């Protein structure tokens, strides 16, 4: 979206009264120019991962609030640890909203139509909940419901018991708040972490025994709360001038990198460059789903909320850089600027890192959605993204619309715009009729990419988030055709699909789908 408008819009929508000094709750973040450490990991034991998070925040001298998930590890409080589970485990996560019960910032929204889950009440900037992004888990209270679940400040907390299916694809997922109207504020620079479903080496033996790195790339605005100039961080480490986060690798070493794009809106066009030349990266998985075949790419596009897992080989000597290129999101989109995310330093004295388990006989049998490409779709739908500007300072409306229905922005109490049944296989064509690139995401399931712009996709990967480039004002609208699988009874319920540019989501580029049992 056009910069000036968004600045004004943000202030108009949100006001500024919350920019007052508050608590300093969050753990200190790493210094610029230091070696990047992986997030602290919490592993499941005996089929259960047990953790207790407190949502906190810190405010710097400029009034900039950083939200954070705090976890009491032995001897230290850590921020947004990586949750590591096996298929079939239960994530037993207790979440306390440790924010001030100051309701100075409310949005005028209707209450959700469903039964309240958690504390109920009105959603404010201080309310929270958790979405387990990409996980094929039920959209119900205490699992992955984001429509009716609210955790309020001052309450004893809320217990998640998320049942990870035995068929959950091994890979990288992530968790973040998902309160409509306020998601961007809490994710901005802080409240988001990685979730790893173990077992990638069982499907993609190429990663067996490799050093594993988990990098969560976040984004924070330089001017508090205003969607304008921003900086990207790698595991909370910022860059400053020529000082960048440092990733240690041994000369010639192969590492397995797991990258989560936890930014608010940035389309990451990732490269590893040696002497200015992008080197091949061996693609292993996208959005937590192992690829049917690995492939080499020199550039990997990861939309907001997407994940990419790949093997990187360090140069035999000297250094390299890990970058995201400038990416055009269209005439009305934000400028995604070229950024050096980290320097890769070859050294023989790397710190201890986790390693992937050794290989077992590989098998992709039993993975969800594995045969989706050959299953016929009984229903075809068309949806489209569009934007509407009434002036340079707004009003601006962001829509995702089922073709044939009246365009409208999401309201928590709305009726589902799509109703289907457990067992349904559907093909959705999603068009972008806006002059800005959008990122389509649906909860609870992965989808298979069938076509791009009406032509068979070169890579029919399984994804949960996909970019749809902007329309240039001429010719057909850019589109993707996606095969949706609602065959698992665990999809029964009401959940959402939306643009994962978080401002768009917060302003209503989202709707509900009901899957009846």
């Amino acid at each position, binding site marked *: 979206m056009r910069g000036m408008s968004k600045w004004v819009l943000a202030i108009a929508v949100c006001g500024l009264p919350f920019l007052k000094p508050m608590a300093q709750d969050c753990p200190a973040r790493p210094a610029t120019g230091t070696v990047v450490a992986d997030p602290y990991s919490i592993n499941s034991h005996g089929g259960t991962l047990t953790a207790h998070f407190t949502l906190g925040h810190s405010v710097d001298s400029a009034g900039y609030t950083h939200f954070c998930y705090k976890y009491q590890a032995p001897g230290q409080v850590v921020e947004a640890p990586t949750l590591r589970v096996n298929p079939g485990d239960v994530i037993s996560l207790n979440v306390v909203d440790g924010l001030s019960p100051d309701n100075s910032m409310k949005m005028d929204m209707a209450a959700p139509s469903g039964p309240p889950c958690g504390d109920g009440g009105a959603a404010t900037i201080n309310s929270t909940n958790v979405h387990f992004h990409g996980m094929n888990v039920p959209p119900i209270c205490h699992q992955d419901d984001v429509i009716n679940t609210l955790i309020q400040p001052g309450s004893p907390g809320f217990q998640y018991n998320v049942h990870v299916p035995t068929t959950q694809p091994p890979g990288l997922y992530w968790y973040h708040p998902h309160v409509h109207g306020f998601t961007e504020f809490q994710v901005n620079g802080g409240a988001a972490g990685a979730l790893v479903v173990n077992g990638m080496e069982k499907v993609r033996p190429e990663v067996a025994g490799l050093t594993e790195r988990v990098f969560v790339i976040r984004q924070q605005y330089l001017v508090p709360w205003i969607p304008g100039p921003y900086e990207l961080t790698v595991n909370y480490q910022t860059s400053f001038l020529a000082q960048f986060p440092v990733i240690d690798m041994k000369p010639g070493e192969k590492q397995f990198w797991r990258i989560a794009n936890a930014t608010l809106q940035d389309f990451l066009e990732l490269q590893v460059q040696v002497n200015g030349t992008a080197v091949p990266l061996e693609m292993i998985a996208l959005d937590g789903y192992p690829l049917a075949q690995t492939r080499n790419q020199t550039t990997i596009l990861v939309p907001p909320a997407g994940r990419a897992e790949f093997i990187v080989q360090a140069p035999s000597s000297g250094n390299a850089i890990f970058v995201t290129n400038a990416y055009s999101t269209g005439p*009305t989109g934000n400028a995604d600027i070229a950024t050096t995310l980290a320097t890769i330093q070859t050294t023989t004295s790397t710190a201890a890192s986790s390693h992937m388990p050794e290989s077992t006989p590989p098998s992709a049998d039993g993975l969800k959605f594995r045969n989706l490409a050959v299953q016929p779709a009984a229903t075809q739908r068309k949806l489209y993204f569009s934007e*509407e500007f*009434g*002036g340079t*300072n707004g009003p601006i*409306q962001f829509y995702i619309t089922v073709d044939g229905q009246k365009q409208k922005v999401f309201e928590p109490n709305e009726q589902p715009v799509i109703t289907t049944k457990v067992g349904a296989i559907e093909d959705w064509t999603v068009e972008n*009729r806006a002059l800005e690139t959008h990122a389509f995401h649906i909860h609870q399931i992965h989808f298979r990419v069938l076509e791009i712009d009406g032509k068979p996709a070169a890579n029919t990967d399984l994804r949960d988030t996909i970019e749809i480039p902007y329309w240039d*004002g001429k010719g057909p609208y850019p589109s993707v055709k996606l095969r949706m699988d609602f065959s698992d009874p665990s999809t029964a319920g009401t959940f959402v699909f939306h643009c994962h540019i978080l401002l768009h989501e917060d302003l209503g580029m989202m709707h509900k789908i009901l899957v009846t049992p």
Partner: protein
Amino acid sequence: MKKFLESRFLRLIALAAGVFATSGLAPAQTHYVLTNDDLAFPFQTGVGFFTVGTNGLPVFLQQVHTGTFGIGGGYFGMNRLAVLNSASQKCVYASEALNGFIVGVDISTLTVGGITSGSDTDAGTTNGIGMVMNGNYLYASFSDSNTIGTFAVQPGCSLTFIGDTSVIGLHGGIVNGMALHGSILITSYTDGSIASFTISGGTPISNGDEQLSTATVTSQDATYANAIDITKDGHYAIFGDTSTALSVEVSDISSGKLTKTTVFKSRASISSSNILLSPDETILYVVNTQGATVSALFFDKYTGKLSAGCTSGPLAGLSQNWSYLGAVVPMSQSGNGGGVFVAEFGTVSGIATVPLTVSGQKCSVQEAKGSPTADPNTPGLLSIESFPPRSF
């Protein structure tokens, strides 16, 4: 022979004078394209004067500094300039939304005349102040106070504030577009409402016909009416919609009140926030604000029906230089206008020149070579006008 020639010369003079007298034409006036060089505080703003070059493109002449402050943007459907072309004076009025001032500039001398403000509560600091006028009154829509101020035209390109009329959409919408014809003033609101007022007594009095536009209620792609134009005979009011397609609505106002609008929709482009009837009313120009294009629809002034025409390609400089398209004026004040000049809002604001060619029921609109013409005095150009103005 000499007498013959003198006689012929005098007869020609007399003939020319007769033509002017019977046609109402005055000696040719300089054709200006006028800009409201909207600048936000702390930069003082002004009114830009462009002449039209032999190649048809605007050429910057000078800026008349008004010494006031704008807001550097606002609603698309408002025009922040209003032109008076009466026998006694030629003026352009510019609204300056930060101060709440309306500044009159004498077009004959290119100097500031009067600076006027409305009531203490009139404000348009968020989205601007729109204006329309006739020979006697200027009406200013203040978008923050949701008021229409009535100002009486005074000599010296000045105004006198008369009073306010509070307005609001059916669902709390903010006043946006305005147009007037004879004794009727029509407004649009950001909630999709449209309404008309009688202005025969000067101050607007509601006609009691406020309603949601048809597209607002039924159309898949349109949210609310924005800019407004009215046919020369006052039979039809036309609304350009804020929409995610090309959407225009027409209301029969021959009764003196709004009637239910009919919708013309096309997927040729995105949004229709600014519209303009051609001088001969055969063409409705539509600025596709979000689509970065200009469309020309065929208009039947006898039935009020619109039919498909043509759409330009995206205008040059989108994204690099400018972000939005704004107001539109005809390139000439005769026939179908020959195309339009369109305001471009952005860091390099300017005026696009988009000629039209028509052949039967086919047409073409394409941006002229050399377009756009940069406006050196503002990064926030939304409103332009033409002098002399269209005759209705």
